[in-house]
């Protein structure tokens, strides 16, 4: 049963997923893969919320997860629009190419 899994295990899983997503953002050079890693981070956070809601038997965790999903969808659409703009300006999807703010 869900109530038999200790909360700590769920939170540790969320933490590991978050860390993996974070490393992905920092390491990958392709903007699209960075966005995917951000999605992973968002899902990890959602998992953490759900686990917390299950622990105290309240529905707030699930509601938060729906908010996060909605926000993720909106963010992805904006992000992909920005990626298109980036590609239009720099002819590449390399994040390091957009460093004209240097200095």
């Amino acid at each position, binding site marked *: 049963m869900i109530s038999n899994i200790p909360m700590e295990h769920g939170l540790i899983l969320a933490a590991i997923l978050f860390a993996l997503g974070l490393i992905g953002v920092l390491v990958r*050079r392709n903007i699209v893969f960075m966005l995917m890693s951000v999605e992973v981070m968002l899902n990890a956070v959602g998992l953490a919320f759900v686990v917390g809601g299950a622990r105290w038997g309240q529905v707030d965790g699930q509601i938060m997860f729906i908010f996060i999903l909605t926000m993720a969808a909106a963010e992805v659409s904006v992000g992909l629009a920005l990626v298109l703009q980036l590609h239009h300006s720099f002819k590449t999807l390399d994040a*390091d190419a957009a*460093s*004209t*703010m*240097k*200095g």
Partner: protein
Amino acid sequence: MIAFLYLIPALPFAGFIILALTGRRLPKSVTTLVGAGSVGLSALIAVLIGINFITAPPQGYAFTQTLWTWMQFDGYAPSISFTLDPLSLIMVLVITIVGFLIHLYSTEFMSDDEGYSRFFAYMNLFVGSMLTLVLADNLVLLYLGWEGVGLCSYLLIGFWYRDPVNGRAARKAFIVTRIGDTAMAIGLFLLFTNLGTLNIQDLMQAAHAKWPIGSDTAVLAAALLLGGALGKSAQLPLQVWLPDAMAGPTPVSALIHAATMVTAGVYLIARTHVLFELAPAVQTAVAVIGALTLLIAGFSALVQRDIKRVLAYSTISQIGYMFLALGVGAWSAAMFHFMTHAFFKALLFLGAGVVILAQHEEHDMFKMGGLRKKLPATFWTFLIGSASLSALPVVTAGFYSKDLILWQAWSSPSGGALLWAAGLLGAFITSIYTFRMVFVTFFGESKMEVSHRPGSRMIMPLMILAVFSIVGGFVEMPDTLGNVALFSDFLQPIFPVQAVQHVVVGTELLFQIIASLVSLSGIFVAYLLYFRSPQTAEKFALSSVGAKIERFWFSGWGFDWLYEKLFINPFLWTAKINKSDFIDSGYTGIASLNRAIHAVLSKTQTGNIRWYAMGIVIGAVVFLGIIVALH
């Protein structure tokens, strides 16, 4: 009448203010009226007050008029107050009368100058400051006048400011006299801290009561005041500024650097003579400095070519005579020589101005000649002035004053044979260089056409001063010639007559004959060397020894070279090695540090988005770590 004393300095100051504020917009006739008229009015009032003073002298022979309290702090309240006593009356009369004659002369001399009103503004300020100096009741007000005349000297020497040479001469005068002024200020501090007052009468009484003769404080205070006097009066070692000060207009040289400002040092020592009597060592130093200066300047005048420089060195030399007199305690003799010197030296300078104007602004005597026929009035007045300077026996004022000094140098208790001999040699040299000047300028072949004939406003002062140069001496004649003692009797309340060593009347006559012979033989030598056979002097000057001597004397005995090596070069060297000012680097260091930190920190702005994300992560980790650690 004597209640109008304050008008004497106030009128020239008023003239200065009017001309300084509105001079440029006034028509020239109004400027002339204000500029020369203020001093003329002052002279008139001075004469009237003088007559009043002589015929009906006030209580104690001194009249003090207090105008207002200058400042007040900690129980000390010096006031603007003027004291009229015989000494200051003589100074006031000479300053205003000779000053007025020079102003009258300047109205024609400077008439073509574009700085006409500026000139008269400065001259009026000068006369006002000088009158403040001599009328001052306390040493603080005297110092105010002292500084005022120093300022005006700077402004007037550098009057034609567009030429940098004039500016350099003005700065040199100001800086050298400043050294003396600093010594004098320290002397004033010393007097005040020890005696609690700077009012001259109170000071002299307190010093006499408190300090024994020869005490260290008295010697130190007198020496410091002497330093101030040396600077202002251009005596050894601070005499280097006066020859260069001839860069100013000739009326300036006549008024400031012959008749009045340079005698301020003589006045100071005469005023504080009680203090100098308490310090015999310093008084001897005054006499020795006077004797040395009169010889050095006399020899230097012998080889000068610029007519004004001859007169400048002559002034230094004659003030040396005054210092010699002060040093042997012959106070009224010094003041007598001051008076006659003011007359004939101003006359000589004004005459030189006429000659310079008439010879297309040429200053070199050897390029002039034969002016005797061309400028007769100038020639005769100049001759009278030169005769007075050379102390021509009996008929000139200079004879009486110089002879009195020589006699006092021999017979006074603190005098001696050596000082007398120095004075005698100086008189011989004086005659030679004076008549060298006369023969070269006025006799011989005329080398240049006369370009500007002097008008009445220039000739009149010359004539009046010539009359004074003759009759001015008749107020003090020695025993052998009628024993007239009007001058020293008049100064009796200030300078009690000194006890003279008992000498036979015959000795005094002998000395007078010696002095007269010396003066006449000097004229004869000048006649031989510069009229009859000018080649002898020139040939000697061309020989190797002669050339060296001439160069040495020409440079004023090398004092400029000495001061350059001793003071100017080390100063310039320290300024050069400190060019990147090490104190400044403290301030610039702050700016450099900022720039360095900026350079380091701006490396973190890479523009790279992953770098920024990393920064956020590290920050979050640190933040959480702190929260966990504090928990």
